[in-house]
């Protein structure tokens, strides 16, 4: 069989790790994919061992800018798990509020970029426009648009000002209306549907085999969600559903994310409502952490974030293990990319939400005689959408 190898990258900023893909193609069909990572390896785990617990919260925040509150939440869960530290009720609601707001902004960001990759720049601009109010809410709550620095062991760092809550509520209502509009527009579009349905299917068996997490797994019918499986913070006090679909294609992943935004809005509203009445401190004073081991996890927008801390009674962790969700989701490319046309590869790669700014690079096809011809995955993907659009007319 004639197989050509397409290298993509290595200049590929992904979550923590830029990647170097090699797609093996036979004609137009992808037959195998291989990845090389390590371009973004900064040695977080090693550095965390030389920092105190509170300092390492700032460090883990800087693992990823999009999940910049999921990592600290998982880390404080792990540190609290060593000694079973309880946190005040108000702090629990604040943690959940910040976590869910992050999910809204991350899913909108993904939606926009997915639109961008298949040539729907309108969707991109819309989704990012309505993402701004969420960032504005973050600014009101924490003072920064990203990197909030809200988590502490035993509680949160900052309180939500009660006089701001009504303003936050108003913004929330506005976002909900806008997102409903986007969701309807995206759902009704026949081109979008035929472009994404049946593309890049990840079967349930593969999802379990690769230990996939988050929306990637839930779209394939694996009902896992840390928020329900091991409810910490306020997740057992609020009412929400987890969204599971069966097909595992890109369309289903989009649907899962879109519906999750609404669930998150629901949770946020309940939290804000509760913050009006629940009073009390926001932080228990934790003086020391005894020797032991702790596991903490949190459902980040992309799936389960896992932190493991091992302590020896001093003020530093002996070992701090971090596992981001994309670390287990990215290997699923091996299953979902097999046998799909090259023009669909881009959106399939983007569908697990590895990160967004990664895939718009031009790549080279090297064929047997080592002649190279430039090919642009983005262009290819957009042309296919155009073609479907023309056929539909």
């Amino acid at each position: 069989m004639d197989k050509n190898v397409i290298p993509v990258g290595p200049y590929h900023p992904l979550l923590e790790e830029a990647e170097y893909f090699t797609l093996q193609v036979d004609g137009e069909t992808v037959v195998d994919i291989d990845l090389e990572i390590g371009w973004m390896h900064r040695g977080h785990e090693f550095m965390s061992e030389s920092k105190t617990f509170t300092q390492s919260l700032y460090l883990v925040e800087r693992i990823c800018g999009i999940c910049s509150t999921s990592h600290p939440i998982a880390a404080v869960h792990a540190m609290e798990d060593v000694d079973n530290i309880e946190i005040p009720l108000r702090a629990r609601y604040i943690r959940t509020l910040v976590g869910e707001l992050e999910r809204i902004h991350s899913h909108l960001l993904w939606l926009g970029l997915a639109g961008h990759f298949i040539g729907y720049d309108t969707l991109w601009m819309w989704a990012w426009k309505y993402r701004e109010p969420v960032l504005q809410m973050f600014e009101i709550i924490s003072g920064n648009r990203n990197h909030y620095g809200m988590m502490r062991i035993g509680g949160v760092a900052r309180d939500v000002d009660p006089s701001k809550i009504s303003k936050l509520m108003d913004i929330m209502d506005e976002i909900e209306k806008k997102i409903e509009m986007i969701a309807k527009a995206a759902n009704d579009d026949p081109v979008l549907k035929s472009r994404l349905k049946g593309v890049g299917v990840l079967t349930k068996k593969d999802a379990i085999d690769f230990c996939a997490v988050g929306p990637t797994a839930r779209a394939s019918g694996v009902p896992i969600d840390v928020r329900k499986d091991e409810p910490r913070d306020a997740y057992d006090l609020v009412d929400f559903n987890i969204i599971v679909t069966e097909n595992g294609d890109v369309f289903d992943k989009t649907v899962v994310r879109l519906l999750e935004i609404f669930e998150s809005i629901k949770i946020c509203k309940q939290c804000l409502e509760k913050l009006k009445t629940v009073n009390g401190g926001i932080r228990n004073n934790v003086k020391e952490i005894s020797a032991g081991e702790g596991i903490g996890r949190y459902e980040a927008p992309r799936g389960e974030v896992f932190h493991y801390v091992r302590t020896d009674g001093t003020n530093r962790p002996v070992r701090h293990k971090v596992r981001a969700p994309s670390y287990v989701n990215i290997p699923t490319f091996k299953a979902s990319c097999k046998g799909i046309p090259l023009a669909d590869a881009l959106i399939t790669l983007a569908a697990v939400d590895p990160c967004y700014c990664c895939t718009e690079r031009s790549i080279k096809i090297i064929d047997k005689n080592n002649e190279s011809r430039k090919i642009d995955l983005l262009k290819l993907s957009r042309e296919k959408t155009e073609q479907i659009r023309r056929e539909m007319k």
Partner: protein
Amino acid sequence: MDNYTEFLSLMGDKIVSLVQKEKRIYFEVDNQNIIEIAQHLFNKLGCRLSTATATETYRGIEVLYHFSHDKSGNYFCPRVVMTDKNNPKMNSITPIVRGAEWIEREMSEMLGITFEGHPRPEPLLTGNHPQNIKVPLRKWRSNG
């Protein structure tokens, strides 16, 4: 708690030592038993492998797998300790759990552990590294 009791009654003879906390158990197993334990946890109980942690301790190099039982929110963490620090070796569980491929590759380049039976024993993060790192990163760091 009950799936812990069930697990411990089935596999209790393979467990060397055990730490039990609320919703988590950490237990030590021998290298030759890890495959059977992983098989039981992954195939029978339907656990998902979250990840694995390799640590260098005074006793040796230890690898701690984290299996999550999602229905109950429990964690099963089998631990394998290799006392030979210069040439640590253990059985790979990748043939059973495909999701373990990357993490085992990472651990082997970080701490120099050889995973026997791993389908792709190549470095994950330092492949094509400009400085051509041959020694595990654990030693590379301390050298400079």
